[in-house]
């Protein structure tokens, strides 16, 4: 009964969204602001309805109500409470509902936050956000109903896929969705501005924070996904150019390009067409991402079943792109920029190069991901594109980006003095050469790794000395103490400081990723109490141990780890057996240090009492995770910054999102 009410909520939300598509337009045409007001109210009503439907589904999970098919498919009575909640987005139908819930929330916030500052375009922002919601609610009430019922009612559910039973998995999908959905706000503003022909910089400035927020959610979501893959899948790495990973990476790359190129529009009134095109592409890639994850057209480690919603998504993406670009070409005259980069040696040029590299990387990822599909459709041949395709093209582009990041900081807007640039380059170049020499002396022989580390040293020197130089200048000019000058430099220009910290995070990320060039793996069979050497470690197998951990039975190999004769710790790589699953799952054991991870996988227990393990040494993995706190601090700082435009008196307070 209550479950039927949930479905009624969804159907009603669909009707309300349709209202929100039509009525704001009527309001504008008839010049009747009350109609727009009613559409604003409809976004709240819509949110309440979707919240109601979500509450019904959540109740199903919490009460183990297996009359709801989706609950039966993704949960079981033995599941810990946290995972019962996370199972909400553990399957396709529930994650679509989650998507719709977040979008409904965003739409309500947007409809009310910007009603005065963007009065001209807000009706069409509401229209665009409602069009997306109509699409989602249509799917939720037809092909992909998370509240579909079944009879007879099973006594036990099929259980959440044990691979998904990991803390990162509770947060990884919602964060990716926040990212994807976050981009729909700047997209809606861009389209609304195109419709109204009001193409100043307002849409860019207004949605800057949404873009930052979406960017941050996507990268953190991906890092959590990498962490999950690293700890749960047991193949030893965290990034494998899997189609589903690529799907999340593409909008993030174009979104990163967008974040930079809107600065050119904001500061120099350039790149207006490019920015509109970039946000259309970013939003389309976000939907493509969901399509790839949820339709099962591409083979992937992420085991979601194939479903009928694939074609619906493809049609929607096609409609979005055709309609958006058609609108853009209708307005192309209004988008002409008066400025261009005047000199090659200017900050503008480095931004253009940055965009070129990022979009080039996104394009490479796109081709590598969809080319097998196209080849299959056109020529009927089945093929697979291997990691070297991505690594050999994207590796150099990434390294170039890292170097550009340092260079860009040293180059001024409009035009830079070559002699001053050379003078400023002396210190960072010196540090880079010294770092490379030192690492070569310490025995690092991999040329690629040496190059990246030395560029990382260059870029971080530039970033840190740039900050220190402004602190010193400030202390001298204002006659302040160094400490208060250090604080003031941050508070005076939060955007710049935020950028600096995020860019430092990027350097850390690169260092961590480069560790992948240096890892090693050995597969060995261990006999009880017989030490085996793996590089500088000695492993000693002490026997098997069995224990119950939550809903799983664990069989672990106790392996003592020594280094230079000194005992370090006991690692317990294991295999776990879940009651709802026929096959055991690998539970890796990792010893993490700053320099490297020792990563053990129990591959098999053999007849003679021996065990076979895979032992990997993964250098510098932790450095990639260090990027997370830096991104967080940097994004918070950048969010605090208010663009000058928005400080005009008619601007209401509460500009941010909830």
């Amino acid at each position, binding site marked *: 009964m209550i479950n039927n009410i949930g479905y009624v909520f969804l159907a009603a939300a669909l009707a309300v969204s349709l209202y929100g598509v039509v009525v704001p337009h009527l309001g504008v045409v008839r010049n009747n602001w009350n109609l727009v007001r009613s559409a604003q109210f409809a976004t709240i009503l819509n949110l309440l309805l979707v919240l109601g439907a979500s509450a019904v589904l959540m109740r199903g999970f919490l009460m183990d109500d297996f009359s709801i098919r989706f609950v039966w*498919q993704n949960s079981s009575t033995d599941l810990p409470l946290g995972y019962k909640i996370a199972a909400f987005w553990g399957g396709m139908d529930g994650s679509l509902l989650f998507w719709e819930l977040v979008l409904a929330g965003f739409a309500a916030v947007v409809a009310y936050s910007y009603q005065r500052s963007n009065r001209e375009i807000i009706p069409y922002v509401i229209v665009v956000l409602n069009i997306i919601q109509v699409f989602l609610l249509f799917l939720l009430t037809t092909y992909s109903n998370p509240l579909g019922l079944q009879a007879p009612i099973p006594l036990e559910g099929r259980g959440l*896929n044990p691979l998904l039973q990991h803390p990162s998995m509770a947060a990884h999908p919602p964060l990716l969705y926040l990212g994807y959905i976050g981009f729909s706000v700047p997209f809606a503003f861009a389209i609304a501005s195109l419709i109204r022909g009001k193409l100043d910089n307002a849409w860019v400035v207004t949605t800057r924070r949404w873009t930052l927020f979406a960017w941050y959610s996507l990268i953190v979501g991906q890092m959590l996904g990498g962490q999950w893959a690293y700890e749960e899948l047991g193949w030893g790495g965290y990034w494998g150019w899997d189609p589903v990973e690529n799907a999340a990476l593409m909008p993030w790359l174009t979104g990163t390009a967008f974040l930079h190129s809107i600065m050119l529009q904001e500061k120099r009134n350039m790149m207006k067409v490019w920015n509109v095109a970039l946000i259309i592409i970013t939003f389309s890639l976000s939907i493509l991402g969901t399509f790839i994850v949820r339709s*099962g*057209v*591409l*083979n992937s480690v992420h*085991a*979601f*079943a194939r479903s009928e919603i694939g074609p619906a998504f493809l049609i929607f993406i096609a409609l979005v792109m055709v309609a958006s670009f058609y609108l853009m070409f209708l307005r192309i005259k209004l988008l002409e920029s008066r400025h*261009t*980069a*005047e*000199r*090659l040696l200017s900050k503008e*040029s480095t931004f*253009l*190069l940055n965009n*070129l*590299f990022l979009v*080039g990387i996104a*394009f*490479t990822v796109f*081709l590598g991901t969809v*080319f*097998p*599909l196209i080849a*299959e459709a056109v020529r009927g*041949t*089945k*093929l*697979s*594109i*291997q*990691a*070297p*395709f991505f690594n*050999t*093209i994207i590796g*150099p*582009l990434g390294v170039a980006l890292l170097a550009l990041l340092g260079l860009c900081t040293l180059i001024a807007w409009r035009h830079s003095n070559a002699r001053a640039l050379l003078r400023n380059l002396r210190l960072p170049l010196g540090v880079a050469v010294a770092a490379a020499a030192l690492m070569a002396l310490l025995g690092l022989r991999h040329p690629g790794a040496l190059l990246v580390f030395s560029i990382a040293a260059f870029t971080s020197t530039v970033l840190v000395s740039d900050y220190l130089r402004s602190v010193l200048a400030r202390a001298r000019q204002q006659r302040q103490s160094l400490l208060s000058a250090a604080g003031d430099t941050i508070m005076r220009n939060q955007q710049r400081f935020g950028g600096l910290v995020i860019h430092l995070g990027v350097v850390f990320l690169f260092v961590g990723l480069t560790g992948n060039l240096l890892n090693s793996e050995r*597969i*060995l*069979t261990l006999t009880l109490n017989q030490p085996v050497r793996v590089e500088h470690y000695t492993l000693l197998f002490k026997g098997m141990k069995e224990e119950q951990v939550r809903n799983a039975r664990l069989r672990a190999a106790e392996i003592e780890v020594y280094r230079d004769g000194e005992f370090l710790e006991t690692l317990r790589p294991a*295999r776990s057996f879940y009651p709802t699953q026929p*096959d*055991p*799952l*690998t539970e890796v054991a990792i010893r993490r240090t700053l320099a490297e991870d020792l990563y053990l996988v129990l*591959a*098999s227990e*053999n*007849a*003679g009492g*021996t065990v*076979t393990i*895979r032992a990997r040494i993964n250098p510098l993995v932790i450095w990639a995770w260090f990027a997370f706190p830096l991104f967080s601090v940097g994004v918070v700082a950048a969010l605090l910054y208010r663009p000058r435009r928005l400080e005009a008196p008619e601007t209401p307070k509460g500009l941010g999102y909830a």
Partner: protein
Amino acid sequence: MSRTVQFAVGGAVIAAILIGIIYQGTQSTVFFHTPSEILAAPSDFKGKLIRIGALVLPASTHWNEDAVRLEFKITEDSRQTIPVIFEGVKPDMYREGQGVVIEGRMDGQGVFRANTLLVKHSEEYDVDQAKRIDKEQMYRSLMKAEQ
């Protein structure tokens, strides 16, 4: 003048990316084949890096833990088989009679030397249990999954 330089720099970057894509596209692409294609013309495939989607022949697995070597036979119809040697460990979901995708090269003795072994049956997480038994269906879904 500076616009020309800008276009030259941008054009060079784009050209480099495109050349990289085309070159790596030929280098890093691995084609899929079925056991019957290989058995029909074994000499065509010798030494070439390929992927095969097939089923593991029941009662054909031999796991040598000391050498860390997995040996089994693959088939698509239970009549024609290809012996496989994989220098590595048995994946968690490895089952005889189930689908695998292997990557490697045919050696001179008609043995496939695999360097990658992927198990492909958990893909159908949502399909009814009954359907898994149908091998024809299984095999088709296996190849479809591996696009």
